[in-house]
């Protein structure tokens, strides 16, 4: 499988602070990859290294299979759409002039599509960017990044500070316009991306805690509740795939990170005996993340 974005052992240090510590990540072509993590986890730094805005202190970052330090304006940036929450725009430009100004930079600029995006996002053409609300400005940025049908769309915390209505409009516009493109989106809030991301990675303190397809993630995580016949002594040595184990006198609750039907049930019975009652429930993504984050921190 070819990867649009890839990092191998990526490191970035700002002074004494290690922001990225050996980050390995691969974003398959055509994926909608959500990079999730708390503030300060290193998401924006990762994106800025991939976009050749920052230089890595070590490791390697690749975009379209090439070293990100060698991103070429003509060959690569014409195929990338980048929108960031804290980007500085030419505030004096009107929305219409902003679009018209950017058009000659992109050989694949599609006027019809640009028009459609302006309409879809209800952007006031003659208003200067400085007079737009934050949400409107993000819409203008997104419109200007979708009008040339980029193969890669990189969004750095695009929904921060937006109300849910604007966020939904942006997501809708993005998904409608970015067919076939690889979308790489960072967010500190899982809820923002869980509805549409195909892949997800969790970054914490500069390290990737996990990175995989959303469906397989949901598939392999189960909350398991075991009701024991008689109170059992507190046990140790649970299988390593059992996370967040809570045990009371007659009840054990845990998250199985590698749930595999009969095999997992057999493991439960082996540990707790045949008489115990076992309830297995699928988990919402948020709960999976919380479990993983806690487990990761505990391990660290």
């Amino acid at each position: 499988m070819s990867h649009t974005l890839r990092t191998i052992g990526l490191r970035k240090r700002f002074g004494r602070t290690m922001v990225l510590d050996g980050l390995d990540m691969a974003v398959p072509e055509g994926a909608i990859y959500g990079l999730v993590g708390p503030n300060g986890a290193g998401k924006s730094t990762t994106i800025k290294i991939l976009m050749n805005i920052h230089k890595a202190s070590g490791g390697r970052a690749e975009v379209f299979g090439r070293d990100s330090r060698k991103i070429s304006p003509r060959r690569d940036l014409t195929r990338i759409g980048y929108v960031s929450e804290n980007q500085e725009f030419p505030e004096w430009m009107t929305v219409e002039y902003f679009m018209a100004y950017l058009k000659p930079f992109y050989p694949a600029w599609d006027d019809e599509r640009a028009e459609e995006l302006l309409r879809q996002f209800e952007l006031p053409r003659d208003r200067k960017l400085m007079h737009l609300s934050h949400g409107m400005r993000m819409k203008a940025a997104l419109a200007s990044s979708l009008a040339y049908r980029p193969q890669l769309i990189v969004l750095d915390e695009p929904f921060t500070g937006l109300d849910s209505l604007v966020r939904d409009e942006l997501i809708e516009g993005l998904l409608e316009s970015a067919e076939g493109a690889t979308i790489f989106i960072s967010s500190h809030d899982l809820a923002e991306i869980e509805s549409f991301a195909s892949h997800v990675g969790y970054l914490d303190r500069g390290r990737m805690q996990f990175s995989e397809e959303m469906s397989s993630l949901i598939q392999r995580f189960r909350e398991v509740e075991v009701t024991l016949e008689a109170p059992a002594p507190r046990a140790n040595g649970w299988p390593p795939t059992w996370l967040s184990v809570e045990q009371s006198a007659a009840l054990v609750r845990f998250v199985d990170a590698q749930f595999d039907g009969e095999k997992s049930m057999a493991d439960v019975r082996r540990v707790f005996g045949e008489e115990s009652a076992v309830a297995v429930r699928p988990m919402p993504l948020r709960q999976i993340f919380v479990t993983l984050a806690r487990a990761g921190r505990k391990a660290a």
Partner: protein
Amino acid sequence: MRQALHILKKDARHLWFEIVIVLAVTAAFAFVGARRAFWLDDPNANRSVAWTMVQILLPLAWWILIARVVYSETLPGDRQFWTTRPYRWTSLLGAKLLFIAMFVNLPWFIADVIILRAYGFAPESQLAGLFTAQLLISVAFLLPVAAVCAVTSGFVQLLSAGFVLFVVVLAWNTAFPQLVLGATWGAFNWIAVYCAILVAGFGALVILIWQYARRKTWSNRAVAAVAAITVLAGAALIPWTSAFAVQSRLSKQQIDVHSIQVLFDSDRKWLARVRPDRFGTAVGIELPLKIDGVPPGIEAKAEGLTMQVVGPDGTTRQGARRPWMQIDSDRQLSTLMSEVDGPFYQSVKDKAVKIRGTLYLTLFGNRRTTLIPFGGERIATRGMGICSAHRTGGGSSMGYIYLLLCASPFRTAPDLITVHFEERGKDVFREIRPDAVRRMISYSPLPADLDISPVSQYFTLTQFPRELSDVAIDDAEPLEHVTREFELDGLRLGEFEVK
């Protein structure tokens, strides 16, 4: 190129107000500069205040415009929208340089043409000066300003950088007044100044290219600091004797100088002085020199001197002053002015010593005299540009005031000038005031000096009770810069000691 023009168009649209301001100031510069030319016809038409103001305002307006255009795509930082758009650095840098050429250089070029015309200089005959002036200002001012803007993210940082530079320059000038760039070398200043300009221009070019290509802000700030220190220390790094050697290589003509001798001028022996300081640590020596054997039609002007005093036992002491400070030259009269240490002087003061050294000379020739009648007519004068002579007053007990006004395009010629206010109709021309016109000269081979003004004005005047007929300007061109070794033998310095 297309992308560069596209960015240029955007900048011109965005910065229309700043452009209008620069054009207005440039127009004022052209207007005041052209009106200033009337001074040649009417000495009372003095517009120096307005002229000073536009000369301050114009670079200020340029500076703001350049800063604004560079900051349209700020280079330091990681949030600018354009860094992730397909901007080619060559196009971006090209757009900025093109913008500066279009809205700074071109209007100023046109203003210069207007001013030259107003003075009566044909611009087509001044093309070399016009382009050299553009080049010098671009290299010495416009590019460095653009480079500093390229490593700063806004006016606050730019002003901070300017303040730091101001403090450093002030501290340097206070700590090393003798090393202030080009402050002491007279007509040779241009070598130190142009070396500094080259360093500044080269540094600016490196910063601009590197910053636009790689956006290595901190590395480029370091380059800027190194360039600034090199510029400041420029005068200290270049020995005056090397500058003279460079100048010598640029000489116009080869003159046989074997006959030239440097001797102790025994006819003016009474001018010799030896002055121990009151602590006895240093002794000033002043000895009149005679420059003999100068070929006919040539005039020699001493520019510098290096020397050592050799005691009878062979011990030597170098003259402690810098070469250009060890000679005082007033046309025909040259005086060695050096200093040696007190204890050495005490040990040799009553003994015959040798003074051995090298005299650095400029030889002037190709004399020509231009007569300018009083009445205000503008007359082209070699070495002076265009001159006019005026007589004012009359009838009163004060007599007349006679003025010679001159305007020179782009630079003053380094010629040796003598001005005579003359009374014709007499058997003998009466020399009322032989005097070199007070003006800054430079031996630079370039057709323009580093100056925002395309024309320099200067004048001289005298007062005389009777009517004079005209002014004679006697001009001699510098032909060669030569050195002559000399040895003054058998001097007893103690004889000249001032008690």
